[in-house]
């Protein structure tokens, strides 16, 4: 419980202002490493972005640094968690070692040992499997540090899959899909029609699924991409839609998320750190988390027949790496309580803008 309380006041670090490094040392941790820490081999051969490891003359795996592959993935601190990863030719992770991080986990009562404990579970996992925090990857060791866990997971799997593709042991590059243009056409549509067209996707979490002694829907969540006028204008109304679109900079896109029920996808812990730790989106190997500066609160959906909502907002994806016309996953890591015990469960839903809203 104490951890929950402390989580609420967790804070993100300074991202870009110069001249502060020295005062932030107390959050920074750097570890020495050697390639053999994550793969048992007697010889390492440098390749482009990774090392091949040999025992005798036999290739036994690959070793690589995450910053060479997924540097853009940053944690709570706004910094990349540098990780050394070993992978065998079958796609099984042989070892993971943390080299540098400045995640402020001390503020939620965690020590670096807890972080290292979290990383241990990756050894023996096959990257060809579908792994996510809450799905094959447990957050128990660093309970509360959701953003750290989610991003660390994306760093390990993202880097490993890229190396596996580069080394030719497995193919992870998805079939290349063409970006499309969003149609500027506007059709008035009701809430029901938008849901039926899959312009709005729904995640329903029932209390029974969570083991909560309570009947009915715990969280009824709706999300979608805002940009097509037939979606955005219907959902937000003209003024708010236009305001939102006007405020977007080049390369940015906007999604909306609404929910009702007892549960919450926003939670109450985002406030001080400015990061939403209960949901994120991912596209291929990229993970996008949201900060308070990306968020505008919405209390009412304008589409005809829309339900009353308990919480919701517009969320701006700031990264150019997100391509809104291509499929993406909406990942919910729901925090809830069974009695006084804090639990997590992951849910995920795939989204693609329906073809009729594309050119």
């Amino acid at each position, binding site marked *: 419980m104490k951890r929950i309380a402390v989580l609420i006041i967790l*804070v993100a670090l300074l991202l870009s202002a110069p001249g502060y490094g020295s*005062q932030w040392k107390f959050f920074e941790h750097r570890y020495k490493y050697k390639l053999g820490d994550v793969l048992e081999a007697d010889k390492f051969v440098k390749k482009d972005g990774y090392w091949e490891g040999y025992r005798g003359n036999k290739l036994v795996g690959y070793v690589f640094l995450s910053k060479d592959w997924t540097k853009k993935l940053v944690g709570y601190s706004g910094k990349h968690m540098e990780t050394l990863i070993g992978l065998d030719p079958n796609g099984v992770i042989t070892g993971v070692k943390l080299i540098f991080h400045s995640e402020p986990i001390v503020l939620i009562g965690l020590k670096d040992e807890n972080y290292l404990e979290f990383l241990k579970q990756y050894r023996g996992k096959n990257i060809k499997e579908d792994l996510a925090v809450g799905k094959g990857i447990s957050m128990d060791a660093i309970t509360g540090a959701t953003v750290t866990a989610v991003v660390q997971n994306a760093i390990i799997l993202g880097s490993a899959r890229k190396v596996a593709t580069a080394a030719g042991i497995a193919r992870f590059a998805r079939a290349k899909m063409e970006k499309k243009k969003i149609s500027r056409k506007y059709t008035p549509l009701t809430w029901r029609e938008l849901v039926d067209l899959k312009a709005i996707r729904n995640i329903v979490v029932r209390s029974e699924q969570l083991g909560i002694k309570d009947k009915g829907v715990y969280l009824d969540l709706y999300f979608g991409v805002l940009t097509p006028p037939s979606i955005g204008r219907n959902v937000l109304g003209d003024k708010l839609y236009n305001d939102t679109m006007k405020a977007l900079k080049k390369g940015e896109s906007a999604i909306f998320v609404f929910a009702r029920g007892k549960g919450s996808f926003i939670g109450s812990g985002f406030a*001080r750190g400015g990061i939403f730790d209960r949901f994120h989106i991912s596209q291929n190997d990229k993970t996008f988390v949201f900060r308070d500066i990306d968020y505008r609160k919405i209390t009412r959906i304008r589409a005809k027949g829309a339900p009353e909502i308990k919480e919701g907002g517009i969320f701006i994806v700031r990264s150019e790496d997100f391509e809104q016309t291509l499929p993406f996953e909406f990942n919910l890591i729901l925090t809830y309580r069974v009695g006084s015990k804090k639990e997590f469960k992951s849910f995920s839903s795939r989204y693609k803008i329906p073809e009729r809203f594309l050119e």
Partner: protein
Amino acid sequence: MSRKKFNKQRRKLLKILGAASVATGAGVMMPKEVLLARAEKKPKGKLSYEVKPGELDEYYGFWSGGHSGEIRIIGVPSMREIHRIPVFNMDVGSGWGITNESKKLLRGKYAGDTHHVHGSYVNGTYDGKWLFVNDKLNNRVARIRIDYMEVDAILDIPNIQGAHGLFPQRYPRTEWLVQNAEFQIPVPNNESNAKAFNEPQKYYGMHTIIDAERMAVVCQIMLDENCDLAATDYKGKYSMCTSYNTEKGVTISEMLAADHDYLIVFNWERIRKALRAGDYKIVNGVKVIDGRKGHDKHGITLRIPVPKNPHGVNISPDGRYAVCSGKVSPTCTVVDLELVDKAYAGKIKPEECIVAQPYIGLGPLHTTFDGRGNAITSVFIDSTNVKWNIQKAIEAEKQGEEAKKKNPHIIDVLDIHYQVGHIMASMAETKEADGKWLVSLNKVSKDRFINVGPLKPENDQLVDISGEKLRLVHDGPAYIEPHDCIIVRRDIIEPKVKHRYDMFEHPLAVTENKVERKGNKVIIRMTANAPVYGLQEVKLKKGDRVTLILTNHDEIIDLSNGCAISNYNINFVVAPFQTKSVTFTADKPGVFWVYCTNFCHALHLEMRMRLIVEP
């Protein structure tokens, strides 16, 4: 008789009774049951005022703070006080009056009396750029930039006292503001004019025109009369003031002597003409145009006689009528602004601009509008809000005394608790008046809240005006002492309000922590970044003149840092990306902890640094 039929007959009877009671000339004192029966019959106007946890108010309410000197932001309809903007007062919480930036604006004056808050306009509605507010106490006008909800200019106005009614230009945009002077004084009011001190006939009222962009006085129109409340029209042609002391009295009985006082209209085109012609005197650095009767060379002023000691003047949202509330007279005076054009052209007499003078109640003070042709007037002595129809009042006026006696214009009368001053409906001072909510700013709360001692709060009552009847829904206590408010749709304000400062708008924004010393002058440039200050210690010598400049580098919304210097009587708050500075003399040797006062972080208590003042 069936119950249904009985009720129908009863309602019919009550209706007749009600009409009869009005016809007897008892004004609006309909029996309570009649009002009740009517209300039951037409259960319209059921807006929900509940704003549940997590929901947002539909309106920003900007409230003046009276002699607290501040402005408050109240959410409407929840009536929650959401924020305070220190204006003319010292606020030790935020550091307003402590920091160099605020001291530069306040110039040593920390008392103020704010009455009227108004927003800047474009084409007859708010543009969400600025608020303006008067200071009746020290005769100033402050401008608040809405993006930061912070004062950015304070203007001292010479040659006036009792800076009361203030109103911005509504069309085509706010280039000018008008500020009325309620107290007549000698002009100039200094030793050079001492012979006038004991001659009240040589005291003058003033209608001051201010340039909103430059925050500078354009000119002043000097009058014999006093200038009380203010209004501007919706065409950018006129401003107005009510005048209750046309007598130039200095005692109450003298001020009440005349049976008629004035609504005075000012013609802006003719003001510009006088300025171009150079027909003004410079007094205390300001252009003063003589607008006195018989001296008004350019015919700037038009005096419309209204009954004894009027109070508010408000313009209907269609721009057509100015409604002048009677105060001592139980009536409102409706002036047709289209006729004012004719009066200026000399085609009709000023009094012929009046198209109705309906009975309202005892002590009408201010009038607001629902955008559906109805006016709602605050009535002080009766302690009511009176809803009446403007066209019906005009028709009855045409029909004559008999028709007027029936008070056909009155739609509803609501008892309020107690003794209302200002009254304001949502968006009512714009062409977009929407007739949803009304706030009755009552001067006396008496028994409406738990007893907090002899000094009691005001009572701002929320009234649903969406139906035919006025429906009282909420009592809201207010500390000293809002006079007036405006209620602005959220969609106008919300997109303009920022979460963080533009860091480099402040020329001293700190990006590098350092201490500079020149002789005994020390400048400490420091950053705040929860939970650390950029410096852990600074060494000073006793007698050093120290300037501390602090910039908050946290980008996170709502992450403000405080900065208090122990035993040095200094505290202020820096919001995300904001810079503030303080200057003090290090006159006490010792170790003095500087600590964060504004909760910022799990390690908030650890956020501190030392000033070491060597003997």
